[in-house]
C-alpha cells in the first residue's frame, strides 16, 4: 500500500538517489581497491618508501609489541587525518605544520595514557616510542600530502590503509625476529628441543639485519616494474 501512495516525483527522486547511492558504492569500492590495497601493498610506507623506520625497527622484537604499536599508530593516524581533513579549509597555510603537530599530539597523548591504563607491560616494552608517534614521519607526511587535500571519506580509507600497511611491515619484521631470537611467537614456544636461539635478533642488530633483506626481496620482485624503488629513501626529518 505504501508504494502506491508515494507520489511519482518522489519515487523518481528516490530512484535517482538509489542510483547515485550505487554509484557512490562503486566509487567507494574503487577507493578501497585503489587506495586501501595500494597503501598496504604497493606503496607500503615502511618497506617501499622507507619512511617511519625508527619505530618499525625499534619495537619489532616481539609480535605483541608490533601489534600494539601498529594499532596505536593506526588509531592516531586515522583520527588525526580525519580531523585535519575536516578542518583543511580553516587551517591557514602558513601555520599548517604547527596545527598538524598539535592535532597529532592530542591523539598521541590520548593513546599514551590509554595504553598505560590498559597494560603496563606493553607500555614499558614500547617505552618512549609511543610518545614519539608525534614525530613519526608517516603521520605528518600523510597529513601534509593527503589529508589536507582530500575529502573526509577518502582520507579515512587512505589513512586506515596506511596504518594497516605500517602494521603489516612491523609484523614482517617482528615475526622472524621473535621466532629466531627467542623461539616463541605470541609468547608460546614453537621451536623444537635443542633449537639454538639467535640472541642477536633480539638486539638492535637484528632489526638492521632483517629490514634490508625484506627491501632487497621487494626490489627483486619489482625489478621489472619501472617504479621499482632502487633509488634513495628517507627524508631529512
Amino acid at each position: 500500500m505504501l508504494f502506491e501512495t508515494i507520489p511519482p516525483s518522489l519515487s523518481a527522486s528516490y530512484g535517482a538517489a538509489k542510483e547515485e547511492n550505487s554509484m557512490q558504492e562503486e566509487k567507494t569500492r574503487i577507493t578501497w581497491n585503489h587506495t586501501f590495497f595500494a597503501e598496504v601493498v604497493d606503496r607500503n610506507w615502511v618497506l617501499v618508501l622507507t619512511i617511519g623506520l625508527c619505530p618499525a625497527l625499534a619495537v619489532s622484537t616481539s609480535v605483541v609489541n608490533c601489534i600494539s604499536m601498529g594499532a596505536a599508530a593506526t588509531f592516531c593516524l586515522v583520527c588525526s587525518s580525519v580531523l585535519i581533513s575536516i578542518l583543511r579549509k580553516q587551517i591557514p597555510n602558513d601555520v599548517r605544520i604547527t596545527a598538524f603537530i598539535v592535532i597529532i599530539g592530542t591523539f598521541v597523548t590520548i593513546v599514551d595514557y590509554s595504553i598505560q591504563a590498559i597494560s603496563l607491560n606493553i607500555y614499558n616494552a614500547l617505552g618512549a616510542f609511543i610518545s614519539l608517534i608525534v614525530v613519526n614521519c608517516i603521520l605528518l607526511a600523510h597529513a601534509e600530502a593527503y589529508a589536507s587535500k582530500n575529502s573526509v571519506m577518502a582520507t579515512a580509507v587512505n589513512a586506515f590503509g596506511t596504518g594497516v600497511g605500517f602494521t603489516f611491515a612491523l609484523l614482517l619484521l617482528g615475526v622472524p625476529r621473535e621466532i629466531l631470537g627467542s623461539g616463541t611467537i605470541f609468547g608460546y614456544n614453537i621451536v623444537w628441543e635443542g633449537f639454538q636461539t639467535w640472541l642477536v635478533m633480539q638486539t638492535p642488530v637484528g632489526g638492521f639485519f632483517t629490514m634490508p633483506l625484506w627491501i632487497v626481496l621487494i626490489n627483486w620482485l619489482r625489478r621489472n616494474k619501472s617504479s621499482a624503488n632502487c633509488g634513495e629513501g628517507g627524508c631529512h626529518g
Partner: protein
Amino acid sequence: MGSSISIFISSVLVNNPLVMLFLGLCSFIGVTKKFSEAFCMGVAVTIVTFLSQQVTFALNSPLVYFGIEYLRLLVFIAVIASLVQIIDIVMKKFMPAMHKLFGIFLALITTNCLVLYVAIVQVSKAYTYMESTAFGLGTGCGYLLMMVIMAGIREQLELSNSPVIVKGTPLVLMIACFLSLMMQGFYGVGG
C-alpha cells in the same frame, strides 16, 4: 659530576641514538650521501638538541607545579617547533653564512625523533640539571659521530660496483647493521 660524565659517555657509545636506539633513522638514510652535508646536519641536530633540552628542562617544573603533566607532550613539541623557527630566523639575520650551510636542515629537525626523545626521557628518568645537560649533549654527539662515519663509508661505496637491487636504502641498513654490531662491543662502558 661523576654520574654526568658516565651518562655522557654511555649516550655517545652504548646508547648511541642512531644505531642502538633507532632514533632519527630517516636523516641517517636521507642526508648521508655527502660527507659535508652529513657533518652540517649532525652539528645542527646537536645544537638544537642541546638548546631544546635546556628549555624543556626549565619548562618541566612549572608543568608539575600547576598539575598539568598531561600537556607535557604538546608543550614540548610546540616549544621545539618554535625554538627551531627562532634559531632559523636569528641565524638568517646575524649569521647569513652559517644559515646558508645549515638552513635547509634546520626546518626539518622539528620532526627528528632525537630532539623529542631527549626532552621526554630526561623527565621520565628524573635527571638533575647536570645529568640532563650531559644526556642532551651526549645524544647529539653520538648522532654526529654516526652520521660522519656513515657518510664517509657511503662516499667510498659510491666507487664500488654494487647490484642494482641493493643500491640505496638496503645498503645503508646493511652497513648500519655492522656499525650496530660494532657499538655493541662497548656494552658496560660508562655504566
